């Protein structure tokens, strides 16, 4: 393993499999226990450096670090010296001076964690940077697929929606390809990034055409907060063409699962009855995220790289 986890592309198949296997073992070790705590990272300090709003990722990383007995410091840009104009570099050097062993970073600017990694001695984990990458989300999605379907090699995964603004889609395409899955992206042409044809994935504009073959359907949130122009005529039209409702869910193969990284726009990209159905792994993804992040923290911080 490398010292940082900045991109899903940092992981080769062996590394990614090691993380998923470790998460599975941690899960088994804690199953059915009253005290869900391990002493592994006692005395280590993990800083959650969040420049952008987040509920599940920040809480998930915080809980993962605490379950491994690390000390956790939460840093939100609001209410800190950042609002007085402190730069990312000065913030990083301050945390460095306080002895952070790992910095979990979320930032609205793509590439911010990469810059950060060059300034500090500890490990940097990318918890989402702009529209670029979100590697631990891809890892927990892969973990969820493997747990539900028993394999990843050859699994047909369809990722639907706002691919353009989605760091989840980008990381998932890279990681799932590394792990041998076949990815199809479905989106309106306006919500596909330039250069998508070079990604290791098929592209389609027609959701109904690909549903019958999909073993996994991953719905993406329409990220209206990142949309400066209008990418589709209306919410209703988007929902009609690219939303997953009960009728479309019925067209899926029997074993297929429905995923969503959250937070959801119920009624827009996913209908409430689909989100709450037995095929939906949305709640499971959250609990799997905890195990996967514990595995990442253990593998990055457990040993001493020096």
């Amino acid at each position, binding site marked *: 393993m490398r010292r940082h986890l900045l991109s899903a592309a940092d992981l080769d198949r062996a590394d990614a499999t090691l993380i998923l296997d470790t998460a599975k073992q941690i899960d088994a070790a804690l199953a059915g226990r009253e005290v869900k705590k391990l002493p592994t990272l006692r005395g280590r300090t993990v800083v959650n450096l969040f420049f952008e709003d987040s509920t599940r990722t920040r809480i998930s990383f915080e809980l993962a670090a605490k379950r491994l007995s690390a000390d956790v410091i939460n840093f939100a840009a609001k209410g800190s010296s950042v609002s007085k104009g402190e730069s990312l570099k000065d913030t990083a050097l301050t945390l460095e001076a306080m002895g952070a062993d790992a910095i979990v970073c979320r930032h609205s600017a793509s590439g911010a964690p990469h810059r950060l990694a060059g300034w500090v001695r500890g490990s940097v984990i990318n918890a989402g940077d702009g529209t670029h990458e979100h590697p631990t989300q891809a890892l927990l999605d892969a973990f969820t697929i493997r747990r539900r379907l028993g394999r990843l090699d050859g699994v047909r995964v369809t990722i639907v929606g706002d691919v353009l603004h989605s760091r989840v889609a980008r990381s998932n395409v890279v990681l799932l390809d590394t792990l041998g899955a076949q990815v199809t992206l479905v989106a309106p042409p306006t919500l596909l990034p330039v250069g998508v044809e070079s990604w290791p994935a098929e592209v389609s504009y027609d959701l109904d055409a690909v549903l019958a073959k999909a073993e996994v359907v991953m719905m993406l949130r329409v990220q209206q907060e990142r949309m400066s122009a209008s990418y589709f005529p209306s919410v209703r039209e988007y929902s009609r063409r690219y939303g997953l409702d009960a009728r479309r869910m019925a067209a899926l193969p029997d074993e297929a699962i429905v995923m969503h990284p959250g937070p959801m726009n119920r009624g827009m990209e996913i209908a409430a009855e689909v989100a709450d159905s037995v095929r939906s792994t949305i709640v499971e993804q959250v609990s799997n995220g905890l195990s996967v992040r514990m595995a990442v923290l*253990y593998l990055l911080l457990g040993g001493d790289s020096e």
Partner: protein
Amino acid sequence: MRAAQNAAVSAVPIGRIILDSAAISRVIDRIAHEIIERAGDDRLPELTLLGIPTRGAPLAQRLAARIAVFAARDPVPVGTVDITLYRDDLRSRGVRPLSATSIPGGGIEGGHVVLVDDVLYSGRTVRAALDALREVGRPRVVQLAVLVDRGHRELPIRADYVGKNLPTSALEQVRVRLTETDGIDEVILR
């Protein structure tokens, strides 16, 4: 390349065989009898064997099978407890892959637990296993069974059941190989 190196290594005469396959079977049978005897009729139903991966796990399986035969009773609950996340040398020796932990369905609360490992050396593995157990529950008794006790303890820990006491120098290596993990049963000192 790797295969060629391994072949070369195993072709060289490698140390002294301390226990061969038949001896290992006899030792396991004896320890099984000792566990039955020490547990007695009232505590035997509460018995759980927990192997410490890698090689403690198949040893625990074998012991459980023999105890079930000798005591003519239902299968003895057997599981594994991985101690990697409880090690005190992770920082100095680096991370390593985890092994499976599986606690039998009945749990260990109030039970009679026998930890099983292949070699008892510094005692640090056993300390870590005791820490791991504490999080799972509170057994009434915890005992330790090992195939080989090679001395050089760094902690006040001793085994309740010992297959073979083997005085060693710290420079020597004890290698336990088992059919389940290595394709052959033997204990070698080199």
